[in-house]
């Protein structure tokens, strides 16, 4: 098969779809689980707090690569037939949830204590206070670090090529092996990652400015 410049690009773009899909799945599932871990982490229950703490320490304290291996090979050893896409999605989701929980906890805690004192002295319970007073303010603070972490997620999906998930990086190395043009191919791979990540940063900047204009301190 003959590889022209355009076949290289079109094949990389096709593979980049999977990078985008995996990033989106990680963002939504990881974000949802991260929200649950966050609620447990800041709850008044000692038990829930410590489970969340343990979870966060486990997934932040081990390399993502090990988590990917364990999801792929470990589950296979236990007799579960896990395809690469499932192992990749699972590991990235669990990994990102631990970071989302900590990023958002920082945002929740940077809402001034006077806000919770005012809410409590008006008779609000914990849940009412969180939903109506703390989270709406924390949300604003959370946008830049959340989108920043989204960029990290996109780049982290590159690791999944190691367990055979054909994302942008994996396609890059396969094409490079066939064409013997690593500089061109990896150069294009880098450009594609940039094209995915750069708009995210731009959106973050835009949202931050817009939200700051309509409310806030």
């Amino acid at each position, binding site marked *: 098969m003959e590889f022209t410049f355009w076949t290289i690009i079109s094949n990389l773009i096709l593979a980049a779809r999977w990078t985008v899909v995996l990033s989106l799945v990680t963002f939504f599932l990881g974000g949802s689980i991260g929200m649950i871990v966050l609620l447990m982490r800041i709850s008044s229950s000692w038990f829930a707090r410590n489970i969340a703490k343990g979870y966060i320490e486990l997934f932040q304290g081990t390399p993502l690569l090990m988590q990917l291996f364990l999801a792929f090979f470990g589950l296979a050893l236990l007799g579960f037939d896990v395809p690469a896409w499932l192992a990749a999605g699972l590991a990235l989701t669990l990994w990102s949830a631990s970071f989302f929980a900590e990023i958002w906890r920082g945002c929740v805690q940077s809402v*001034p204590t*006077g*806000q919770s*004192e*005012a809410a*409590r*002295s*008006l*008779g*609000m*319970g914990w849940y*009412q206070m969180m939903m*109506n*007073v703390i989270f*709406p*303010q924390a949300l*604003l603070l959370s946008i830049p670090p959340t989108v920043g972490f989204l960029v990290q997620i996109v780049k982290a999906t590159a690791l999944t090529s190691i367990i055979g998930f054909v994302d942008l990086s994996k396609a890059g190395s396969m094409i490079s092996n066939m064409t013997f043009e690593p500089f061109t191919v990896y150069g294009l791979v880098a450009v594609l990652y940039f094209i995915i990540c750069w708009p995210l940063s731009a959106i973050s900047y835009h949202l931050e400015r817009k939200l700051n204009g309509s*409310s*806030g*301190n």
Partner: protein
Amino acid sequence: MALLEISDLRKAYGNTEVLKKISLDIDRGEVIAIIGKSGSGKSTFLRCLNGLETPTSGTVRIDGSNLTLDERALKELRLKVGMIFQQFNLFPHLSALDNVALAPRIVTKQTRYAARAKARIMLEKVGLGEREHARPRELSGGQQQRVAIARALAMDPIILLCDEITSALDPELVGEVLNVVKKLAAEGMTLLMVTHEMRFARDVCSRVVFMHAGQIHEIGPPGEIFTAPKTPELKQFLGHN
């Protein structure tokens, strides 16, 4: 029976005793000024009365029910005790109207319509009926503090705690806030205020509490406290020699 009965209230952080056995009865309609140096325990005392701080020992009875640690009972009791803070603590993401209407809607479960109607009445009362759509940051300090007063009043408290509510204000804005408080006092609201406004304390309050080193050092009607202080500490605080 007094509206507020405080007996042997103690608060300690580790080995530091901030409040040492405070006892005080307050009747309905009284306006009490709490004065004293910073660090004398004034704010902590006030915060113990609505459960923002947990007393180490002693009892607080409000309108016949005990202040307890139980979160549910505490919530009930907080409905009767409003609090206004030095830094206003308005919710920055909500308009003035929604700041006032939020708690009636979600805590006492009034309809959105009823809560807003109530909020309008309260904003009207503090002279801010025109500014209901303004965000806190678009208001002056004095206006923000008046919204905070309206927010506390919207819960129909029977006691209002004011924690240095004019200390963060520019001097020219103090008057508008104190006028609102004066109006409330005239309407018969029970008020406990930590304050540095001695003139206000003298003119409006029924009793003045001088706190020193975590205790009620001297207490009496303003005439007595300001013109004939008995203890050297109060004399020094007032600048008498």
